[in-house]
């Protein structure tokens, strides 16, 4: 389907923005964004096959199920999580099981495995039972938008299937190497995509690290043979969580400890549930009139899922408050490689190397998260141009600057990501009370607003002033709506005009040291 409209077009700019590489933009060759200023005109019908299938699934689900269940089922079957309410999604993330909505290797593996199992039971010949599930898995990847995690899983399945077909021994690491190699050859930008990083790290953990983790439990499993399988599952989950640790901390600012426990239950449940959901969705698309009956049981399970995650609070057990630097992450993975037993280092050599790497990870991680005395660092984020937050970190204080209405979950992620617990907040927007409400989850002691804004907060100090100072940084609200910051003789501007939050003035990379200078009207970072 074609669409025509008059709108404002903006170039997307650099692939790296505010210290975050926008891999999805580069992979999709999205060089521009636009807003629609007049009613669009649609021409033609349909679209490509996969878009049409997704639209059909969306229609069948939203037409027959309550909105929440429909959104969950749609996310499970296509990987598109946009319809899931943010609070629920956040709880699922804190529980460490958000990957069930990402159409990951688990989905493709279960889909491929279920089809292969069915064909085996039907005693289909090898020439049919090997390629047919592969073709179906490829089409399923298409419905999921050919996401990198889905394609990684598909290629791994393909490599394994080819090994089966020609009768050579299967090798998990080679299959992972083949899948990752093909994806990176197709587009090296995938290396910087979070989905690919998580998917590849999780799979490599399963095939390379889990056996070593399993060995740690072998004395116990030898004594109690009944525990062998559960302990093996714990080892796999533990290995995956360890392998994902640097990636997760870098991307989300935390790793869920609950995830280890919940995944033990989630994986077998999902393996059982997912084929039934897929079959139900397929039937619902074919027989829309009976969709609500067909999907009754899968939807009931999703209701229970939502109820459980709404009732529970998994945010209490998170590994957070620090991030790996690049060097620490590399050393951490070398340490895991050593632990995996695939490096031929033994005895004292192995111990010495392990001690060195562990010490390196510790010291390098410490230095990454350390704000030296007499310095000030600024990190920031933005979202759809609706709001902007900046974090000003000095030796003794973290100050959060907020412009625009920002949701508390976004703020929480931002603060986790930078290991910050703000001592003070500075609110620039004219809806200060609403903004302050979304900040109450933090332990800030004082909130600063311009002198013409009244803010009332229980149990927190509020200061309405045009100029104030926090830990050596001077802040001045200007009548133009901007906030000027001065530190060690250097001044920067945080633009706070309500109409357009212009963040470009803070061009500092996250975790960059000081900071900002303005020369001839151009802000540069030094």
């Amino acid at each position, binding site marked *: *389907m*074609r*669409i*025509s*409209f*008059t*709108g*404002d*077009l903006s*170039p*997307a700019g*650099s*692939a*790296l923005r505010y210290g975050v590489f926008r891999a999805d933009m*580069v992979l*999709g*060759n*999205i*060089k*521009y*964004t*636009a*807003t*629609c*200023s007049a009613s*669009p005109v649609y021409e033609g019908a349909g*679209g*490509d096959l996969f*878009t049409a299938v*997704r*639209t059909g699934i*969306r*229609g*069948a689900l*939203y037409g027959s199920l309550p*909105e929440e269940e429909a959104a969950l089922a749609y996310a499970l079957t296509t990987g*598109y999580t*946009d319809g899931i309410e943010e609070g629920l999604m956040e709880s699922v993330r804190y529980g460490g099981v958000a990957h069930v909505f990402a159409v990951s290797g688990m989905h493709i593996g279960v889909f491929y495995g279920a089809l292969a199992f069915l064909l085996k039971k039907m005693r289909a010949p090898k020439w049919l039972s090997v390629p047919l599930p592969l073709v179906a898995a490829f089409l399923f990847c298409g419905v999921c938008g050919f996401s990198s995690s889905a394609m990684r899983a598909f290629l791994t399945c393909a490599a394994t299937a080819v090994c089966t077909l020609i009768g050579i021994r299967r*090798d998990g*690491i*080679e299959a*992972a*190497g*083949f899948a*990752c*190699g093909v994806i*990176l*050859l197709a*587009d*090296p*930008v995938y*290396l*910087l995509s979070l989905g690919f990083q998580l998917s590849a790290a999780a799979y490599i953990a399963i095939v390379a690290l889990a056996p070593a983790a399993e060995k740690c439990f072998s004395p116990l499993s030898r004594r109690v043979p009944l525990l062998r399988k559960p302990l093996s599952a714990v080892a796999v989950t533990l290995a995956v969580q360890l392998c994902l640790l640097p990636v997760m901390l870098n991307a989300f600012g935390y790793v869920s400890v609950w995830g280890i426990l919940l995944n033990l239950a989630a994986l077998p449940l999902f393996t059982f549930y997912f084929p039934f959901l897929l079959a139900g969705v397929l039937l619902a698309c074919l027989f829309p009139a009976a969709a609500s009956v067909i999907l009754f049981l899968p939807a009931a399970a999703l209701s229970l899922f939502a109820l459980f995650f709404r009732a529970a609070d998994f945010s209490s057990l998170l590994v957070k408050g620090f991030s790996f630097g*690049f060097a620490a992450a590399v050393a951490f993975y070398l340490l895991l490689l050593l632990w995996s037993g*695939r*490096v*031929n*280092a033994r005895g004292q050599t192995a111990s010495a190397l392990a001690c060195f790497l562990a010490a390196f990870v510790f010291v390098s991680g410490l230095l990454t998260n350390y704000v030296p005395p007499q310095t000030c660092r600024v990190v920031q984020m933005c979202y*759809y141009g*609706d709001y902007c937050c900046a974090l000003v970190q000095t030796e003794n204080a973290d100050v959060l600057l907020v412009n625009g209405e920002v949701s508390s979950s976004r703020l929480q992620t931002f603060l986790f990501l930078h290991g910050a617990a703000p001592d003070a907040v500075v609110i620039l927007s004219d809806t200060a009370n609403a903004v302050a409400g979304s900040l109450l989850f933090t332990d800030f002691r004082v909130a600063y607003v311009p002198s013409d804004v009244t803010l009332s907060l229980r149990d927190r100090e509020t200061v309405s002033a045009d100029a104030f100072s926090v830990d050596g940084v001077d802040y001045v609200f200007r009548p133009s709506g901007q906030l000027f910051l001065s530190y060690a003789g250097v001044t920067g501007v945080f633009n706070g005009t309500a109409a357009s939050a212009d963040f470009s003035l803070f061009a500092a990379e996250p975790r960059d040291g000081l900071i900002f200078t303005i020369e001839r009207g151009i802000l540069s970072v030094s």
Partner: protein
Amino acid sequence: MFRVHKEGDTEEDFVNLRPFAVGAAALATGAGFCYAALFCGVHFLYALLFLLPLGMILVFARRKRRAAVYVFLFLALFGVGMGGLALRMESYGAQQFREGEYALSGEISELTETEDGYARVLLTDVSADGRELDGNVTVYFYASLKNGE
């Protein structure tokens, strides 16, 4: 002293004997170096510090043909990864149209709905004021996509 091995190996090699794993690692390392050079202020020449020892191994390990093949494979794919990412970034950075109001027309490739009630549409094969656009466009507008609309 060290070798990366797999079960059943008998030779005392220090390189991984799995060609696909070596290839993927080389591509990833090359692309990683390119990213560091383009966005983290690490100079491209630093890659030489990494590659020179490998090159020397290639020269000295000519008699150990298998080791030499693996080192050559690594070096070649390292270059492919590095060059590939550099080319992609070069191509992405070239955005020919300036900010402004245009009559836009394009093929709807993807429809999603954001949590604040906006629809996000990915347009491919886009033209702006009749001229072909050099990339895809994400369009935001207020609409509900529920019920498959």
